[in-house]
């Protein structure tokens, strides 16, 4: 009996040790960025002339991204020694697949930050190839491609260029013309220089547009002010939550100020729109009316909606007349709009960086940028010449308005934080979770922000 018991204990011990060893081998170890497989060897050399080289462009499996497949025949005709393959993934799996491919030695050559992660995450995980040498050898000049220098600066860290801008979205206001007509209100202006268009004036207009009743079908709200992501919103009112060195050191803030009185005042001003002025719907109301994505504007129940210009893309299908207007002035005379510039970058694991760069140059050239507007269904080009064609793209919206809104946004814009700050997807998730009681009115800003401040510093310190 005793011998059997000893045997049993021994067996259990052995099994649990083996189990522990298995578990330990699973965690820890190198991150995807470090696992540089054998493929790294010939990154420096380009393919010998005469051999066809295949480069992979990795993007989201969605027609507004995969339209580039239609451009491939033209490109391959112009560059007979380069073949282009498009690798796709759904949005939620974009980052996982990318990390797996890189770790597995099958790194794509060209991609952009189409998933949750932003440029800063890719940069800090050491995934991006520094393009300075290629640019010098090639003689590439942004001005030749009508790309504004300001936009090139966004993805240049410490004088090294990591990304070439290809698309630029801005934050703008969409408004429901039918609702304004019914309330006999003048349309909001598209001119950023119009001094009368302020945040307070917007709230005034919103009050006239808001009718709340027990019958959901009759209820409508004046405005939905979704200006960028939660952590960036204080900037609209002129308060900076991240220290200035963030924008020059590759996205690692040394200090954050989310629990300062100034920052908390800005969040209070925004939540007052829902709870005090009552001109904005609660998130529950938006979700119940418009589904999980909660975009109530599309259902025609919202007068004004501040959001990214990708919202324009579906506007031809809306069951009401749509207009574009400038984001009102809120206290920051330098920043009123958020820029979302998507860059193309070459990954470090690429075996054919020179050929990859040819493909990038092709995509940002004048005529391809113009063609891409139609093919993609309305992606805004970064090329200023092609932009003229973009402004005309939307039925029922005056191209002059679109142009004024875009140019004003560039003049008074700042690049979105999600492209510039490290570990941003974790920061964003944390903000969404911690600030959720604010959306429902269960907690106050003063109760929530100290926790947010503590957690954000923890996340930033993580590698």
């Amino acid at each position, binding site marked *: 009996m005793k011998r059997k018991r000893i045997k049993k204990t021994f067996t259990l011990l052995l099994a649990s040790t083996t189990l522990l060893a*298995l578990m330990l081998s699973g965690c820890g170890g190198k991150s995807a960025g470090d696992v540089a497989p054998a493929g790294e060897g010939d990154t420096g050399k380009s393919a010998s002339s005469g051999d066809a080289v295949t480069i992979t462009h990795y993007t989201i499996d969605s027609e507004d991204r995969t339209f580039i497949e239609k451009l491939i025949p033209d490109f391959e005709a112009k560059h007979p020694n380069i073949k282009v393959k498009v690798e796709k993934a759904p949005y939620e799996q974009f980052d996982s697949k990318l990390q797996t491919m890189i770790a*597995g030695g099958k790194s794509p050559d060209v991609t952009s930050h189409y998933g949750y992660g932003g440029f800063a995450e890719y940069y800090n995980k050491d995934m991006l190839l520094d393009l300075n040498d290629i640019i010098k050898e090639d003689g590439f000049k942004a001005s030749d491609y009508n790309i504004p220098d300001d936009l090139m600066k966004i993805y240049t860290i410490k004088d090294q260029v990591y990304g070439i801008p290809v698309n630029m979205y801005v934050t703008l206001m969409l408004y429901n013309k039918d609702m304004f007509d019914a309330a006999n209100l003048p349309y909001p202006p598209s001119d950023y220089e119009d001094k009368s268009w302020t945040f307070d004036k917007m709230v005034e207009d919103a009050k006239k547009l808001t009718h709340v009743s027990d019958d959901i079908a009759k209820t409508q709200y004046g405005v939905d002010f979704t200006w960028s992501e939660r952590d960036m919103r204080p900037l609209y009112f002129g308060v900076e939550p991240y220290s200035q060195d963030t924008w020059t050191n590759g996205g690692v803030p040394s200090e954050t100020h989310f629990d300062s009185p100034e920052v908390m005042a800005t969040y209070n001003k925004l939540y007052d729109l829902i709870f005090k002025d009552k001109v904005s719907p609660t998130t529950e109301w938006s979700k119940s009316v418009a589904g999980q994505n909660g975009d109530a504007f599309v259902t025609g129940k919202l007068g004004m909606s501040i959001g990214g210009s*990708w919202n324009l893309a*579906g506007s031809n299908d809306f069951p009401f007349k749509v207009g574009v207007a400038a984001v009102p002035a809120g206290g920051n005379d330098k920043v009123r709009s958020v820029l979302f510039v998507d860059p193309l970058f070459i990954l470090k694991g690429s075996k054919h960086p020179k050929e990859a760069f040819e493909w990038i140059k092709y995509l940002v050239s004048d005529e391809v940028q113009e063609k891409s507007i139609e093919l993609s269904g309305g992606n805004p080009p970064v090329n200023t010449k092609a932009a003229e064609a973009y402004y005309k793209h939307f039925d029922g919206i005056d191209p002059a308005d679109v142009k004024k809104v875009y140019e004003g946004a560039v003049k008074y814009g700042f690049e979105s934080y999600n492209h510039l700050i490290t570990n941003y997807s974790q920061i964003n998730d944390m903000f969404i979770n911690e600030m959720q009681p604010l959306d429902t009115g269960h907690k106050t800003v003063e109760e929530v922000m100290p926790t947010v401040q503590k957690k954000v510093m923890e996340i930033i310190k993580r590698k």
Partner: protein
Amino acid sequence: MSTIPAAGPQAPSSPIRSRRKIDGVRIASFIALIVTTFLMLLPLFFMVSTSLKSKKELLKFPPSFLPESWQWSNYKEIFETLNFGQMYMNSLIIGVLTVVGTLLSSALAAYGFARYRGKGNNLWFMLMLSTMMLPYPAIMIPQFILFSKLNWLDTFLPLVVPAFFGSAYNIFLLRQFFSTLPEELFDAGRIDGCSELRMWRQIALPLSGPALATVAIFAFIYSWNDLLTPVLYLSSSDKFTLPVGMSSFTSSRFRIPPWHLLMVASVLAMLPIVTLFAIAQKRFVEGIVLTGIK
């Protein structure tokens, strides 16, 4: 009033069996069951109803139960929007192969674990169970490297071949079932000169209908719904499976996701699973009846 079925057939020879009474308790429980069934079926009903709505009707609030006009054309539109037929076939092929592989390998391994009391049997069994503890992200990258070196990327092989190497959960399930089979059957087989493999095939498997049916259902559903593995390994559009194709519906291309098309896809995607369950369920009942008579 209520249409309760008449009391069940009375066993003429059994004096102990009492007549089933139609009383308040039975009526109440019957009503409770009907209400619960109705609630369970409501999402299904809504799914089919949405699949027949037109695009404009999707945005209506409050949402309507029945479509205003029945858009049967949606069922044609899905084939034009996505490469639906091809993706369906791909998913089916992968699903069927996965089930075959899982059943074969798991039944063999489970038989070994159940019937052999050798040295270290428990140790190996626990080791195998411990592989269940590894989360997929932990093995995702090494597995990808393995398949990439084998040049199996962009084929169905990485999705199907691992099924032929056993699945811990299913081995566990089948092993528990096999160990309940009476030893006498196998002794009888051995006396008659059966080899072990033959005993597995002709004694153990036929008696394991319900357990095998369960494993088949689990394996099929898992493979049918799997999104991450096909995304990792497949790059050509003509090889995509249903989940991969349907995921593009919630992408940025559509400002308002085309719920009507997504529901059509879901209704069609549901059919094989319902069919499989209907077939397997028969086996379930057969199995229960068999054991009852024994």
